[in-house]
């Protein structure tokens, strides 16, 4: 039998990150651990076809990686000062680790990759590579970056972790909420990047969305918490609309105009379940509230039947928990959707006067839409043009252009 016959590729995909996470703890170094991981898989692809896949492949691989590392350390001159102590520690490790210990290591890896001393870009790149197992090339393609630039980001992030001696651990209770926020933020950013994607790289982007959801699921298993549930719920409900949000021509379809029969009901149901779980923890944060808002949209059989009162109420709570100009903008839009066009417009105008959103194309598009519905075509046209000027995403640009063309005809 060949390594392929015994499904080693599948084992790599499902287990290599967990093995790596534990090896990083044991070896105290990302690069050494990556080397040991590679060696462990080389050993597996030699041994398993002859002897069969062990009952617990993860344990086997961790143990093989550990022994390969001991072997290498004995021979290498690179780690002279540390060598005897590290070898002693490694040799004293128990042969088989309980599943909980492996899960704990996995969580340590996530927290380390999302450590706040790293820039957000570095956290995203490191998490996708080390926790999700994406290659540098895949990350670069997904974020439309040059491969060497991403590679350098990853190398520097690892050097920072080493130089700052960032402990490989799940943070203590008092720091946990902040550090968990940092992790969820990375996952949210990955999902958003995928979700607000322009055309051309759609396929890669949907892989990225799937990766974010996988990470979200993993977090709910490793660290169940209100916001962990909330974020997963939010992503699932958003993902449920992926077939409806672009027309066959690749143009953007607004939530109100989407064909709701294209929404994935399984994802909606699962997403709503997680929103309920989040509320049940009584630790309700911004992700949970945003997820709840998405869930209200998702449960309306038609756009006209949307429960805007409930959505506005949720935005009110969200504004108290996490005030931001974008949340205020969304609340103003919801007020407009409820029928209070003048009030909604006044709120949007006030936000634009304050200046924080003056470069945010959604704010101008909202202003344009409210003016259009009030019959103020000239003001609408002006605002659509401003939005188009600021917008970088192709499908959205086409949408804005269509609106401009329709309005311009009436002059």
């Amino acid at each position, binding site marked *: 039998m060949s390594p392929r016959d015994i499904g080693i590729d599948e084992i790599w995909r499902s287990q290599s990150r967990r093995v790596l996470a534990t090896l990083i703890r044991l070896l105290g170094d990302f*690069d050494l651990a990556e080397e040991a991981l590679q060696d462990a898989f080389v050993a597996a692809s030699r041994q398993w076809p002859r002897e069969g896949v062990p009952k617990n492949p993860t344990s086997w691989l961790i143990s093989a990686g550990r022994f390969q590392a001991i072997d290498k350390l004995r021979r290498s001159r690179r780690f002279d000062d540390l060598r005897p102590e590290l070898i002693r520690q490694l040799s004293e490790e128990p042969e088989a680790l309980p599943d909980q210990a492996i899960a704990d290591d996995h969580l340590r890896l996530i927290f380390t990759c999302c450590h706040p001393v790293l820039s957000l870009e570095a956290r995203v790149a490191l998490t996708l590579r080390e926790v999700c197992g994406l*290659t*540098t*090339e*895949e990350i670069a393609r997904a974020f439309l970056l040059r491969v060497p630039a*991403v590679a350098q980001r990853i190398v520097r992030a690892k050097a920072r972790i080493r130089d700052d001696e960032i402990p490989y651990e799940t943070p203590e209770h008092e720091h946990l909420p902040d550090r968990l926020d940092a992790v969820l933020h990375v996952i949210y950013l990955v999902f958003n990047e995928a979700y607000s994607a322009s055309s051309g790289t759609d396929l890669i982007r949907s892989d990225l969305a799937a990766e974010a959801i996988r990470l979200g699921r993993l977090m709910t298993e490793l660290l169940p918490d209100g916001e962990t549930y909330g974020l997963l719920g939010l992503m699932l409900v958003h993902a449920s609309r992926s077939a409806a949000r672009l027309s066959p021509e690749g143009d953007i379809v607004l939530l109100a105009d989407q064909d709701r029969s294209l929404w994935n009901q399984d994802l909606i149901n699962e997403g709503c379940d997680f929103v309920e779980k989040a509320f049940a923890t009584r630790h309700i944060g911004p992700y949970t509230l945003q997820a709840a808002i998405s869930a209200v949209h998702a449960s309306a059989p038609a756009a006209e039947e949307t429960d805007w009162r409930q959505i506005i109420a949720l935005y009110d709570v969200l504004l108290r928990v996490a005030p931001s100009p974008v949340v205020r903008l969304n609340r103003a839009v919801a007020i407009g959707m409820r029928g209070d066009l003048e009030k909604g417009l006044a709120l949007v105008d006030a936000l634009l006067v304050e200046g924080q959103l003056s470069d945010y194309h959604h704010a101008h598009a909202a202003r344009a839409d409210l003016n259009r519905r009030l019959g103020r075509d000239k003001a609408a046209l002006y605002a659509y043009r401003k939005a188009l000027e600021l917008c970088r995403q192709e499908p959205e640009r086409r949408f804005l252009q269509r609106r401009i063309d329709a309005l311009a005809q009436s002059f």
Partner: protein
Amino acid sequence: MKYMLLIYLDEALYLEMPQSEQDGFVNAMLDHDDRLRSSGHYVTSDAPMAPSEAATVRVRQGKLAVIDGPFMETKEHLSGFYIIEARDLNEAIRLAAEIPLATVGSVEVRPVDKLERIEQ
């Protein structure tokens, strides 16, 4: 994916090293080849001889022109190369950093593209 690791050295500086140190590098490079073989990354490697041994060839209008010497005269020149199989650019960088000569020269890591026949 395949990557080419190109090792550039200032040969003048290298030759100033005591013979024992130079020999040490040769052996360390051979050991490194073995490590890459056992980790499954190795495809091939070799050490081009000095640029003074090179000839540069051009064919223009059917005429062969040979220049005595390298294509480009530079202070640091190609003194060795590897082709390796690695998971991604970061793994290739990690492996490049382990090359003994990386401590005295520079290693350029280049992804290798496979040419495909184009229908004409």
